[in-house]
C-alpha cells in the first residue's frame, strides 16, 4: 500500500507526459502532412537549401 503512494503518481505523471507530448505535436502542426513527412526523410537537400 505504501509503495502505491509514489507508484501511482509516477505512473499517472508519465502517462500525462505522453498525453501532453501528443497534444503539443498536434498543436504544432506535425500531423498536418503525414504523407509528406514520410517522404521528406528520403530527400537529400543541398547544403545551401537547408533551412
Amino acid at each position, binding site marked *: 500500500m505504501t509503495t502505491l503512494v509514489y507508484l501511482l503518481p509516477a505512473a*499517472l505523471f508519465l*502517462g500525462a507526459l505522453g498525453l501532453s507530448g501528443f497534444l503539443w505535436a498536434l498543436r504544432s502542426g506535425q500531423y498536418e502532412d503525414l504523407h*509528406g513527412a514520410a517522404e521528406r526523410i528520403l530527400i537529400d537537400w543541398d547544403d545551401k537549401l537547408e533551412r
Partner: protein
Amino acid sequence: MSCCAPGAEMVPDPGRVTPDLPSNQEIRLASRRLGDGIIQSDLSVPTVHCGACIQAIEAALAKLDRVEGARVNLSTKRVSVQWREGEVPPIIATLEGLGHPAHLFETDGDEKDGMLSGLVRAVAVAGFAAGNIMLLSVSVWSGAEGPTRDLFHWVSALIAIPALAFGGGIFFRSAWNALRHGRMNMDVPIAVGVSLGYAMSLYETVIHGEHAYFDASVSLLFFLLIGRTLDHLLRERARTAVKGLSRLAARGAMVLRDNGARDYLPVGEIEPGMRVLIAAGERVPVDGRIVQGTSDIDCSLVSGESTPLDADAGELVQAGMLNLTGPLTVEATAAAKDSFLAETVRLLEAAEGGRAHYRRIADRVAVLYAPVVHLTAFATFLGWMAASGDWHRAMTIAIAVLIITCPCALGLAVPIVQVVAARRLFDNGIMVKDGSALERLAAIDTAVFDKTGTLTLGKPRLVNRSSIDPAMLAIAAAMGAHSRHPLSQALAGLASPAGQPTFNEVREHPGFGIEAIAAGSTWRLGRRGWAGSNGRIGAEGKTGVTVLTRNGRLVASFEFEDALRAGADTAIAQLKHAGLTVEMLSGDTAAACAVVADALKLDRFTPALVPSGKVQRIRQLTNDGHRVLMVGDGLNDTPALGAAHVSIAPATAADISRNAADFVFLRESLWAVPLALDVSRRAGRLVRQNIAIAIVYNAIAVPIAILGHVTPLIAAIAMSASSVLVIGNALRLQGFAPTTTAPSATRAGIRAWVQPS
C-alpha cells in the same frame, strides 16, 4: 493573349497556347498578408505524389526572386509560398514548367478545422483515461480489496473527469440538441448510459462498494470517439480534395473605367454598366452585352450545348461562359449576385429538400433502439424492486443493463463500414461527401445522365482522320496549337511528334479561324466560307465545316463529333445489368442527343431542356416512386443534382455542381458510376449485417444483465468483443473483388482531370 493576362508572359513559348493560368491579379486576390511585407499564396497542385516532387518544387520555388520559402503539403496536395511585397513571382509558370499544373483555390472559409482537432484531442484524452483506468480496474478485478480498492476507485473517478468533459461533451451536446428538437439519435442512449454509469460508480466508491464501472464508461467513450473521428476525417478529406480542383468561375475581372484606367476588381464588386475586358481563355464573370470584339464562346457549362457559338458586338453573354478566341469588351447588365450563376444557386436551393427528409439508417435504428433500451432498464429496476425491495441493488442492476446495452457496437456499426467504403472509393478517385450519400446511392433504381461533359467529354474529336492526308493533318495540328478553340485543340492533339512545320507568322481571326504564312503560302484553318471554298476536293463533307486551305484552295476538310467519355458504354451496360433504368437529359439538340443515346443504348432521352426542365423530369420520376441518381456537370444540371435522390459529378464540373453533388469522381472514366453503386450496395449489406450482429449481442447480453450477473469485468469483455466483431466485419469490404472491371484508369486518367480545358 492580351495585356490583361500578364501571367502568360512568363510562358517560355509565347506562340503556344497554354491552359488558362491565373493572372497575377488573381494570385494577389487569393493571397493572404502575413505582416512584415510577407504575402502567402496557397496553391493546389494535384500532381504532387512523391518525395522527388516535393524536392523539385521547393527547390525551384526557393530560387525565384522575392520568394522567402515554399512548403509542399503532400497529404492535401498543396503548396504554400511566402513572398515579399512587390511584383508577383512567376510561381504558377514555374510549377507549370516543372510539369505540375497549379491553380488557386478558395481560401475564404478555409480556416483551420476546429472540429477535427477537437475530436482528436478528445480521442487522446479518452484514450489516456481509458488506459489508466483499465490498469487500475485490472488490479481491482484480480483481487484488490478494502482501502486499496477504494483508492483505485477514487483515482479512476478523478481520471475519468477530463475524459467525460472532453469526450463526453461531444455526445452530450448532440444528444441535447436532438432531444430539444423532439428527435432521437444514437447519442441519447450513449449520453444517458455514460453519465448514469459514472454517477452510480461514484456513489459505489463513496459507500466503499465492490463494483465501479469507470472503465466501461470511459472505454465506451474512447471507442465511440474513434468512430466519430474517422467519420469526420472521411468527410474532411473529400472536402479538401474537391476544393483543390480548379475553380471554373471567374474570381475577378479587369474593369475599364470611363477615364481609360484599368482596375482589377473582385467579381462581387462589378456593377451593371461597368465595362469588363475578357481576354481569350477567361470566363465571363457576370451577365452582360458584348460592346466590342469578336470571338467564339464555349457555353457547354452553362447550357450543355457542345458546339461553340459565335460572339459579336451586341450579343448577350452569361456568367460562366468561356471566351475562346478573341478579346471581348462586355458591358455588365447584372451584378454577380443577379447573374445566371446566382439564379442557378436559387434554383438549387429550391430544388433541395427531398434529400433533407432522408433519415440515416443509424438514426432510424436509434428511434427504436433508445426507447427499448431505456424501458428495459426501467422494467429491470421495477422488477428487482418488487422482488427484493432493495433499491440500491435494483438500481445497480438497472444501470448495468444500460451500460451493457450502450450502443458501442451499434455506434461503430455504420460509420466504420462507411469509412472503409469511402476509403475504397477514394483509392479509385471517387470522393464521397458523407455517409448518407452511400446509403442513398444503394437505394436508387433510375440513373439520369447529362450529355455534354458527362456522357461525352465535351471535347470534339476528329472522326475522318483516315481520309486526310497526313502531311495536311500535321500542318493543321501545328496551326491548331495556336488557338484555344476546342476544334483547334482537338487537331493540335493529333500532332506527330517528329517534324513540326514552322510558320513565319500565325494570326487568329476570332470567330473565323487561324491564318499562317509559311514558305510563301498562306494557310487558313477555319470556317469553310472564310478560308475559301473553291477547292479541288469535290466531296463536300456532311458536317465538315472546318477546312484547311492553301492560298484559298481547299486541301482538307475535318469532321468532328463530341467524344464519348472513356468507359461510358461499359458503365451504362453495367448500370443496366444492375437493374437500373438509364435516361439522358440534355440541353443540346435532339440530333446530337440521338447519336449519343444510340451509341450507348440508353432507355430514354429528352433533348433541349432548360435547367428547370431537368428538375421537373426528376420530380416526375420521384413522384412515380423512383429513386433517381443524377449524374451531371454543367451549371444547367446543378438544380437537377440537388433535386435527385443522390447525385454524382465529374471533377471537370462547374464549382457549384461539384458542391451540389454527393460524389465527385476525379478520373476521366465513367466507370466510377457503377463502381460507386457497387461499393455502396455492398456497404449497405454490411451495415445491415453489423446492425444484426449488434442486436444478437444484445439478445445474449441483456438477459444476463437483467438477471444481475454482470460485473464490470464481464461488461468490459462483452463490449470489446462486440466492437471488434463489428469492425472485423466492416473490414471485409476492403477485400472484395469488384464485380465491375476497371478499364485502364490509371495515371493517364489522373492527369486528364487535372487540366480540364
